[in-house]
């Protein structure tokens, strides 16, 4: 028992938050990488320069990013109900988390690929690489440290989102802090949930840094 609440309740909440964060981060990595690559490739000096397509993709990305997360969850309720079958629990939070965070990560990917740059694109093409080879064999591998740094930042942002989702029915530490802590006026539980989220975020940062270090360390 901790502050009159079973330890297992805390652990369950921690697990739910971790699950929401990890599962949606995996999806966000894949979707963001795809969307970000498309944004880079269709932009000026990209591999498949296409002004119209870039404008459409860019506008959609910006529009999705501009929707406040709480409103996004509400907007997605019908979609979530069809896809997941329920709008309660951690899994039901995934669509909103993924749709909310993917455009954010896509922009990071886009920037990283631009930074790696036109020089290497030209180099690859000059040796007879196809455009796909340039993207997958040169630009993405060269950008990997930046992409990992980006997904770390994104995962931390997602952890923040999970607590918003938690407060309205997704469970997890946000739910613990809001429902058990705030709503029942037990500040210590709120603090305990906050500390656990902070530890989780620190952990993500440490793991991310470790990966970057491993990727950058060559000799």
């Amino acid at each position, binding site marked *: 028992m901790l502050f009159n609440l079973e330890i297992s309740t805390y652990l369950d909440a921690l697990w739910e938050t971790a699950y929401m964060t990890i599962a949606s981060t995996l999806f966000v990595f894949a979707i963001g990488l795809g969307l970000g690559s498309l944004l880079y490739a269709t932009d000026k000096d990209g591999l498949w320069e296409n002004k119209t397509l870039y404008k459409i993709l860019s506008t959609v990305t910006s529009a999705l990013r501009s929707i406040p997360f709480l409103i996004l969850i509400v907007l997605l309720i019908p979609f979530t109900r069809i896809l997941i079958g329920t709008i309660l629990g951690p899994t039901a939070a995934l669509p909103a988390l993924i749709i909310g965070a993917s455009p954010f990560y896509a922009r990071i990917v886009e920037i990283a690929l631009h930074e790696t740059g036109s020089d290497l694109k030209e*180099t690859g093409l000059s040796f007879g690489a196809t455009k796909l080879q340039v993207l997958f064999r040169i630009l993405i591998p060269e950008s990997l440290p930046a992409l990992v740094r980006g997904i770390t930042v994104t995962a931390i942002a997602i952890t923040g989102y999970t607590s918003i989702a938690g407060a309205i029915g997704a469970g997890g530490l946000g739910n613990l802090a809001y429902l058990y802590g705030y709503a029942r006026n037990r500040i210590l539980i709120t603090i305990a949930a906050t500390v656990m989220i902070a530890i989780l975020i620190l952990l993500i940062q440490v793991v991310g840094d470790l990966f970057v270090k491993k990727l950058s360390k060559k000799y």
Partner: protein
Amino acid sequence: MITLENITKQYIGSKDEIALNQVSARFDSGLIHGIIGISGAGKSTLIRLLNQLESYDKGNIQIFDYTDLRHLNKESTRMLRKQIGMIFQTDHLLSRKTVLDNILLPISFHRKITSEDKKFAQDLLQEVGLSEYSTRYPEQLSGGQRQRVGIARALINKPSLLLCDEPTSALDVITTGQILQLIKATAKNHSVDVIIVTHDMYVIREICDTVTVMDKGRIVEHGDLDDILFKAKHPQTQAFVKEIGLDLSSVVQQFDPKELLLLKFDESIVKDSIISEMIQTLSVTASIVYANVTPHRIGIMVIHAPKRIDEIKLFLEKHKVVVEDVI
């Protein structure tokens, strides 16, 4: 042989400036060709047409067995590019691959890498003087070493043509000399034609056989190195030549051209003391008014001989010196 006929190119979005304006040129096999011009003259664009990193609007290019490069399909374009190695101003190496993997990269775009490829890469690495560095990463190398890796990488697909886009602009003077000699030596070893783009007359003088001078999207002068160095006509060319301290015309003006002889000699006789021998044997007076003797190239000298110039000419020609009139 590579020929360009009336090539015109305009970049999209730039209304008035034409990148290349009615450019025609011919680059013969077995030589090192230099293209010189100030920034924006169109020289980088010109070599990028050859491997179709840039396209052109009008005209025709003939290279290897390819004609009409504009209408090549994707696969042919890739095959064309495979036959053309390229070296860039900065190394453009992949920072996350070892030196050896960087060299092998161009092969990997076309097929699986075999153990023979690895052997060849290692040989190339030895040729550029970096055999100990195969497992290092680019950031562990100096600028000159990275450029050496770039040269090895450009040769891995056994190209017939090597394009060098300002290959030494980011290097110091001593390293520049080394890299240029390396390009020359490897080009000879692998029977590769070379086209070097530069804004530095020193680069041209050091290794080029022919020179093309570009200005504002046009070729303003084209010829063998000696013609460009000593008989430049266009003001832009003359300005480049002056830059490296060669200004034959101002020297020549002080003399009667009939009393001047232009001597050319290669390294085989550079150690013979022909001039002093000539003065002793013929007991004539002759003074050297101008000389440019670089160890790797044909030496040039202008002598002023007020008397018996025909005898002098005969004597020198007997000693394997090429004698020409000045201008």
